[in-house]
């Protein structure tokens, strides 16, 4: 498993089946695989989007993603996990990000994948720039709801489930 790339930042698109097979490879004790795929929406804040450009901070990005991934492994009993984040130009419906987690039982995989996404949104140095049909551009604003989503994981461990 040492050669398995847990974190990838790449221009290329990814294939879900291929990536999940790689995530599962060598682990027979997996009962649950949860994956999250983030995709480019055709409308944001009410405006049509033609192109979404992803900028990142090389070096810090990989470090931040790996730190988040390891935090998830400390917090839950996981078999394996991976994060792929694309950079460069994307179109509506394109895949942007994949977070996938495997574990023995489903609870840990659901929680950990959600946790990784919430932390990625607020801690990994990526920036989105939208291009509208008329050619104008806009940097996407950080959302307060993302900060709040992350903050909810700060509370002490308990067994409550969101409703």
């Amino acid at each position, binding site marked *: 498993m040492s050669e398995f790339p847990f974190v990838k930042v790449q221009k290329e698109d990814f294939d879900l089946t291929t990536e999940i097979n790689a995530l599962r490879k060598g682990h027979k004790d997996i009962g649950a695989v949860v994956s999250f795929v983030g995709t480019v929406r055709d409308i944001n804040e009410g405006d049509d989007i033609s192109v979404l450009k992803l900028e990142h901070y090389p070096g810090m990005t990989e470090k931040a993603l790996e730190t988040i991934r390891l935090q998830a492994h400390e917090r839950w009993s996981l078999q394996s996990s991976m994060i792929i984040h694309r950079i460069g130009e994307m179109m509506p419906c394109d895949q942007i990000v994949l977070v996938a987690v495997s574990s023995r039982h489903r609870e840990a995989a659901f929680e950990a994948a959600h946790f990784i996404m919430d932390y*990625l949104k607020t801690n990994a140095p990526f*920036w989105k720039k939208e291009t509208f049909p008329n050619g104008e551009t806009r940097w996407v604003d950080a959302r307060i709801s993302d900060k709040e989503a992350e903050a909810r994981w700060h509370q002490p461990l308990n067994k409550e489930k969101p409703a």
Partner: protein
Amino acid sequence: MLEILYFANFREVLGQSQETLPSDNFKTVGCVLNALAERGEQWKMALAENNNLQIAVNHDVADRATALKAGDEIAFFPPVTGG
């Protein structure tokens, strides 16, 4: 020397992505920011008086009080919006 990086709209507003500063004059990130702010209103608004300013030193999250040493890489950027 200190390596200074600018990302996203900071890079665009300030017109550069990277520069090098002598390290001797700057004990903390705050000292760097104060010096940059003297370049003009654009710089002051973008960096010194911007509550949205995010800072990293050597790829770790930092703040104005973070101490610097020669060879450090300091990055300035807005709140992240990936995912």
